[in-house]
């Protein structure tokens, strides 16, 4: 049971009108790993993510999450799985009429019968967990910066302590420092909460910083491999992606970082 993949996508086909976006996508995500999905603009990275979480119905293929066939599950079964994952949308997708704390409490209120005081305490814990200042809890989304909204969205995604976390472009629109902080936060939480993370990203730095494996969407299919293997790949797009100027810079930064991190330990 423990060795079964958490997410298993097989032969997924997505079409919009006459246009085929995905043609036989396969993906297996193991428990506790961080997997990054990359691909050019318009290759359907976000569509893939939306399909896995059930916001988009595929034309063909199968999706299994936590051992359950999501495309043929009953509503109750789906809901049961949905409580065990959290999704962070691109701009947080916070409910604009609710404060941050109330946003975090929405899933708790819906799924658990919990006293108000305890719910407030748990919401405050989540606010701290994503490193938002305490004062942010009573603010409305419109009063927060983009980075804070993302953190608040992450706090809501973590409200029910899910096993799987889906992130859609978590660092897009953040400045490099905030993006690096966010990467670190995801890595920390993944370590301490034992999360399985699926992250769609454009950001090479965060790819190098947080992902165990990388799934590249090319030719309407996924190529899943470790970064090291992708770097050897001679597919023209994959090569251009990882060996372009930005790819090289991100790789160099990562090597430097690892070198600095490894130095004290090697003594």
């Amino acid at each position: 049971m423990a060795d079964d993949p958490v997410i298993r996508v097989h032969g997924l086909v997505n079409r919009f009108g006459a246009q085929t976006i995905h043609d036989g996508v396969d993906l297996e995500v193991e428990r506790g790993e961080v997997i990054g999905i990359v691909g050019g603009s318009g290759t359907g990275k976000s569509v893939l993510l939306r399909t896995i979480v059930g916001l988009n119905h595929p034309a063909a293929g199968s999706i299994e999450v936590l051992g359950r066939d999501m495309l043929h599950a009953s509503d109750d079964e789906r809901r049961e799985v949905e409580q065990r994952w959290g999704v962070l949308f691109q701009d947080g997708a916070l409910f604009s009429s609710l404060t941050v704390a109330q946003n975090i409490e929405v899933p708790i209120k819906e799924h658990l019968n919990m006293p108000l005081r305890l719910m407030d305490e748990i919401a405050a814990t989540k606010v701290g967990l994503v490193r938002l200042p305490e004062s942010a809890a009573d603010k409305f989304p419109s009063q927060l910066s983009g980075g804070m909204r993302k953190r608040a969205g992450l706090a809501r995604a973590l409200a029910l302590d899910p096993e799987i976390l889906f992130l859609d472009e978590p660092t897009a629109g953040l400045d490099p420092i905030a993006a690096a902080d966010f990467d670190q936060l995801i890595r920390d939480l993944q370590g301490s909460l034992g999360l399985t993370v699926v992250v769609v990203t454009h950001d090479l730095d965060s790819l190098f910083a947080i992902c165990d494996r990388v799934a590249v969407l090319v030719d309407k299919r996924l190529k899943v491999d470790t970064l090291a293997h992708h770097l050897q790949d001679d597919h023209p797009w994959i090569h251009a992606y990882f060996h372009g100027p930005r790819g090289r810079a991100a790789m160099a930064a990562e090597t430097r970082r690892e070198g600095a991190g490894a130095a004290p330990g090697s003594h």
Partner: protein
Amino acid sequence: MAPAATLFAADDPDAVILQADGDWLVATATALDCELRALNLPQGRHVTVDLGRVERLDTAGAWLVLRTEHALEVRGNRVEIANLRPNLKPLLEQVRVTGHVEPLPHPVPPHHTLAGFVARIGEITVRVMHRGYMILGFFGMVSITLARLLAHPSRLRRTATLVQMERTGLDAMPITGLLVFLIGVVIAYQGADQLRRFGAEIYNVNLLGVGVLRELGVLMASIVIAGRSGSAFTAEIGTMTVNEEIDALRTLGLDPIEVLVLPRLLGLVLTLPLLVFFVDLMGILGGALMCWAALDITPQMFLNQLQSAVSGWTMWIGVIKAPFFAAIIAMVGCYEGFNVTRSAESVGRLTTQSVVEAIFLVIVADAAFSIAFSVLGI
């Protein structure tokens, strides 16, 4: 299946042991919370929180452990957390580092007190006055731009103005026409019922003529246009504000008032009177058909009576009001569009507000016209 989360307090003279068991998860947190609160925490003792039998722990469970630890420490106990499984340790540390010990209390809504109620009335009054002041300012700004346009008529955006005339006037003809036609039918029918008692059925024509031509035609058309076009103005300009298109116009050296407001204002001011004339005809037509069907007043008789009942002025009074109402609707619609902040939510809120304000102001203006006309003796 792991046993349900439980807590067991073993009391011996030297040390207190809190023995935790089972899953400490968000799903079991409610029961654990009850138990923990019911626990009569000792004072000034050494307490061991034994987590050895906790199988699973999540942030909610970790928070409960840390809250208990904190509560015990506050009461002067020495607390030790023991036997936590090594794989759960990082989680507890993470929550300890970042968790807030005391959550923020929910703020009490201020308007639940009497003082808050009075303050709210004051606040709203000030806001309404400020809003009136701002609309007046906007009106001034548009007037200046309009004056500049009159000096250089070639700067008028003809295509945009024509498009607005089509959208606000031509496209609105079926709906407004049908509506006023039905109003004519209803008035004729109700009037017939009342006037028949006095044998004065023929005066139904007077009621209809004066009612539709002077008031109902222009009011109904304005209300429908406020809902149809005023809201569209707010939504269009509001969406552009959200997309920073207004800012883009400014940086390109274009005046948003000239580009966006004047075509809408001129388009509506030119078309609403025409639309009012059209709906007047439809209203009379509806009334005439009803009179024919219910009162046996033939179209010939109807026209004769109408000629004696109304003068040319009766219709003009209705049509004259139309450009003023059109200006109110266009101004309010555009003004609220510029008021949109950069959130999609404010587009919806201000669109609703613009329709309510426009209809309110149109009816106020209509009342003012009535008074003015009666003073003038028209």
